């Protein structure tokens, strides 16, 4: 007889549950494909393609969304507790602040001082505030702010703040805290053990807010994300860095900084050389022939540039190659008699103007192609051509002089530097862990305006990463890791799908145009299994967490998601600042319906459409089953949108002990 001990029983139960979850995922995806394939190939109403196509695209979007969710849940489970923290590790605790009240920052910093594991605590003040410095010093805290190197150079917001502090400190590990995230004393004791694995670069813990009541009108808590979803990503070694309440290994960050630096320098130097060759060619063709001395000089520089390109292609290190080239060019220009000094001065002015005009964006500055075009368009003198090539090469030398510091370990390609950074770390073969235990308690926004701004920022940052470093094509990560990052980005595209989901029932109820060409029976036969399986999947994998509010917000905030996509697109491809669109003023008092005006308009249209549909049915114009289905759909949409009404009326957190 076999006697099972308690652990074996639990293990078996876990295995059985895992098997069921996986079965459910497979079933959901199969019935989903069954539905979408039927919708695409057998039931599309091509006569009304203008709504039929958007709707089926939206449904395909949702199927992919559910499939990615299924993949996330495939390996989702809590980790075992890590080993105890080894003594003797060195840790820097960073508290990042920009404009938060000094008392709030100090409150967090005092809690940080009380962290049990030995550490140094630093306030990283990006606001450079004198009273902050004094308060920090009075409390015995380290105080770090940007130095002169950052003047007239891109600041890169929080990423820049952290990068600056990395250079000023030396702990092996870094605990990053937002100014309003109060750490518990055991935060390091309970997490440093993960780093016994030398490949672990990051441990993320949940972000939980203390100033949110059970109703959570603004949807601040993210228990599904800081729970099953991060655990699911963790299962594929893709737990994200979320900016705060995380511990990072300095060596991993610095290595990332080095590798990126070499990569950026190589890219910039090659681009500059290519551009320089172009300018020289143009200068020789148009003007060189007139003066043999200058022609010879241009020829020498051309040869040197060409030789450098060959040498670099053959593996010559960038440092020596650029150094030699610059010396050669300096020699050539020294040999030239500047008989048109005035012309040359004008050229230099033009070059400077070009460099100034790029407003400090790294991408813009190294966009040599643009500068070259502009230079070629200007009527440069031949001597000017040599000088401009020299200036161009210098501006993108290996010293990366357009940046405050050569190493930028925290990614600066996005306002969500956290996600971009962890993706790069994973791409380099580092591992991450998600530790599911509340070890810091933060403050959530207390009004809808601030909350929306925050969501907009996250969505913008995530879209920036998608556009700049699409995870699907990043080398170094496994397919599952790529999909885990892509999944989060994909979820921010829901705004476009929402429009189709709102428009389709309105169009049917008002105009009688049906995007689906079928009978009700055929439709439900395929639709119901998919929708039911998806909802069961959410309930089962949510492990008792209410997932409904999240689903509501993902559709109801459609204007935010769309704006995030369009502004991020304009930022990445048209170099427009992200906050180009002026955000609404924070509320003065009372409900701020302005913030949700598009949703109110949609809700009104939906309600009117339902009435029109019913009237059409009574008049005998409307088709009964279609009308019923679409009225139910409208009600569903209205329930989705209804999440915003308490949010707009939310008057802030009322603590039970001290009512305000």
């Amino acid at each position: 007889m076999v006697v099972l001990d308690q652990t074996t029983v639990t293990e078996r139960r876990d295995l059985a549950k895992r098997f069921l979850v996986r079965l459910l995922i497979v079933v959901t995806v199969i019935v989903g494909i069954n539905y979408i394939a039927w919708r695409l190939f057998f039931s599309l109403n091509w006569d009304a393609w203008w709504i039929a196509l958007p709707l089926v695209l939206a449904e395909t979007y949702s199927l992919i969304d559910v499939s990615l969710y299924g993949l996330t849940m495939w390996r989702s489970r809590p980790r075992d507790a890590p080993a105890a923290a080894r003594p003797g590790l060195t840790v820097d605790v960073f508290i990042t602040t920009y404009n938060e009240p000094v008392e709030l920052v100090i409150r967090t910093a005092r809690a940080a001082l009380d962290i049990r594991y030995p550490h140094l605590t630093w306030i990283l003040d990006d606001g450079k505030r004198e009273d902050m410095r004094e308060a920090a010093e009075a409390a015995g805290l380290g105080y770090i702010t940007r130095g002169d190197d950052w003047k007239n150079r891109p600041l890169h917001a929080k990423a820049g703040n952290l990068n600056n502090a990395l250079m000023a400190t030396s702990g092996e590990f870094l605990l990053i805290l937002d100014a309003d995230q109060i750490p518990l004393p055991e935060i390091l004791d309970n997490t440093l053990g993960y780093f016994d694995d030398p490949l672990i670069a990051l441990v993320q813990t949940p972000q939980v807010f203390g100033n949110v009541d059970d109703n959570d009108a603004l949807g601040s808590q993210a228990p599904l994300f800081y729970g099953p979803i991060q655990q699911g990503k963790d299962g594929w070694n893709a737990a994200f860095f979320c900016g705060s309440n995380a511990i990072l290994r300095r060596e991993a960050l610095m290595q990332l900084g080095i590798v990126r630096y070499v990569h950026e320098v190589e890219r910039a130097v090659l681009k500059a050389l290519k551009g320089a060759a172009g300018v020289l060619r143009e200068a020789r063709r148009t003007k060189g022939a007139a003066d043999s001395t200058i022609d010879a000089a241009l020829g020498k520089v051309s040869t040197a540039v060409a030789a450098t390109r060959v040498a670099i292609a053959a593996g010559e290190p960038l440092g020596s190659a650029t150094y030699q080239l610059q010396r050669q060019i300096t020699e050539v220009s020294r040999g030239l008699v500047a008989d048109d000094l005035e012309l040359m001065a004008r050229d230099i002015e033009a070059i400077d103007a070009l460099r100034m005009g790029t407003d400090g964006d790294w991408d813009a500055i190294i966009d040599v192609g643009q500068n070259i075009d502009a230079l070629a368009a200007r009527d440069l003198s031949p001597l000017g051509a040599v000088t401009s090539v020299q200036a161009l090469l210098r501006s993108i030398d290996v010293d990366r002089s357009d940046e405050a510091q050569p190493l930028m370990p925290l990614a600066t390609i996005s306002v969500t530097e956290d996600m971009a950074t962890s993706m790069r770390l994973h791409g380099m073969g580092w591992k991450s862990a998600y530790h599911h235990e509340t070890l810091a308690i933060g403050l959530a926004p207390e009004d809808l305006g601030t909350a929306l701004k925050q969501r907009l920022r996250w969505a913008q940052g995530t879209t920036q990463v998608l556009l700049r470093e699409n995870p699907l094509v990043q080398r170094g990560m496994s397919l599952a890791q790529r999909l885990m990052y892509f999944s989060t980005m994909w979820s921010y595209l829901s705004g476009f799908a929402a429009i189709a989901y709102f428009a389709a029932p309105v169009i049917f109820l008002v105009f009688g145009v049906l995007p689906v060409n079928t009978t009700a029976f055929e439709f439900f036969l395929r639709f119901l299994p998919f929708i039911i399986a998806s909802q069961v999947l959410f309930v089962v994998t949510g492990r008792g967490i209410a997932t409904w509010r999240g689903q509501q917000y993902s559709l109801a905030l459609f204007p935010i998601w769309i704006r995030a996509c369009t502004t991020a697109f304009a930022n990445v491809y048209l170099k427009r600042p992200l906050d180009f669109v002026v955000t609404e003023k924070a509320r003065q008092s009372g409900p701020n319906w302005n913030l949700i005006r598009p949703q109110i308009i949609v809700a009104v249209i939906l309600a009117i459409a339902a009435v029109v549909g019913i009237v059409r049915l009574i008049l005998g114009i409307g088709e009964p089953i279609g009308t019923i289905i679409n009225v139910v759909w409208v009600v569903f949409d209205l329930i989705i949108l209804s999440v915003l009404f308490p949010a707009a009326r939310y008057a802030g957190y009322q603590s039970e002990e001290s009512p305000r």
Partner: protein
Amino acid sequence: MDITVKDLGDGVAVLHLDGRLNMVTASGLRDQVGTAVAGGRNRIAVDLTKIEFIDSSGLGALINGLKTARQAGGDLRIASPNEQVKLVLQLTNMERLLTAYDDAETAFIDG
């Protein structure tokens, strides 16, 4: 880690490093390069012969030094890394940036 500075004249300084170049000692190297450049020696040769261990922060200090020297119109070169250091240079792709010279004293012999 100990740093001995040797002035070769003509604006060239050799920095002999001894020990571990890591996150703790990196700032020392950074300061020494800064001092040398401020003193008019903008061509810096860093002798790594006696460096038994280097980490990414150490590499970061070399890059910072390179920046400092280049901005002053000079250069920073490294010489005779051991196997561990070579491996790190390779892993981080730093060898794409910096040539490892055989001998620090002669790193600037060609100018």
